[in-house]
C-alpha cells in the first residue's frame, strides 16, 4: 500500500521536502512508517524516532495502523497564537 507523509516547519527544513509517498506492507503502523523513512539515510534519518503524528488530521499514537491512501502528517512541537 502507499501512504503520503507530510513534513511541516522544522521537519520540512530538515527533510528538504514537505511531501513523501511511501510504500509499506499491509498492516504497517506509524512506527513502521517512521522506520522506513529513517532507513533512507540522510537527510531522512533526521526525523525523530517517535514524532507526533496525525493520520488524516487526527492525532494518533505510534502503534496506530495505516491504510492505503492515508495522509500522515509529522508535527513538530506546535507554537500557534
Amino acid at each position: 500500500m502507499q501512504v503520503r507523509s507530510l513534513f511541516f516547519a522544522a521537519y520540512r527544513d530538515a527533510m528538504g521536502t514537505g511531501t513523501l509517498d511511501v510504500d509499506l506492507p499491509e498492516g504497517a503502523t506509524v512506527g513502521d512508517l517512521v522506520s522506513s523513512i529513517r532507513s533512507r539515510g540522510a537527510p531522512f534519518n533526521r526525523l525523530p524516532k517517535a514524532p507526533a503524528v496525525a493520520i488524516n488530521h487526527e492525532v494518533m499514537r505510534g502503534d496506530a495502523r495505516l491504510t492505503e491512501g492515508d495522509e500522515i502528517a509529522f508535527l513538530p512541537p506546535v507554537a500557534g497564537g
Partner: protein
Amino acid sequence: MNAPARDQGASGYRIAIVREIIDPAAVLALVRDPADGAVLLFLGKVRDHAEGRRVGGMRYEAYQPMAEKELNAIVEEAARQLGTDRIVVVHRVGDLAVGEVSVAIAVSSSHRGEAYQASRFIIEEVKKRLPVWKQEQYADGEAAWVQGQTLEAIEDAR
C-alpha cells in the same frame, strides 16, 4: 480580512485561518448581539524581541485542514462550557511584520465572566493544540523556529 456582514442577533461561532491582515473591527462586528452586555477582544501580535534578540518579523505556517478542524473543536468546547456561541477566532499565517496581529479572539456574552473565561480558554488551547508553527526572523538576517509544545494523542490507537 474581509469579514462578511452579519445580522444582529444571529448565533453561531465562526473560525478562520487567513493570509490577509486581520481587521479587529471586522472581527468585533461579527459577534454583535443586542442581548449581550459584554464584548471582549483579544489580539495576539508580533513583538520586536525574543530572548534578547531583535525580531524583524514572524513567519507563521499551518497544517490548514487540521488547524481549521482543531480550532473548530476548541471553540465548540468553549461555547458548550460557557454558554455563549458568539465567538469569532481568526488566526493569520504567512509573513507578519512586528506589531501585526497573528490571532484575534472576540467573545460576546450576557456577562463579562463568561467572556473572559472563554477568551482565556481559547488562546491557551490554541497554543497547545493547533498545528501551527512560527519562525522568528531576526533583524540580523537569521531565523529560527520557535520551540513549541508537543502534541499528544488523546485517542486510542485505531
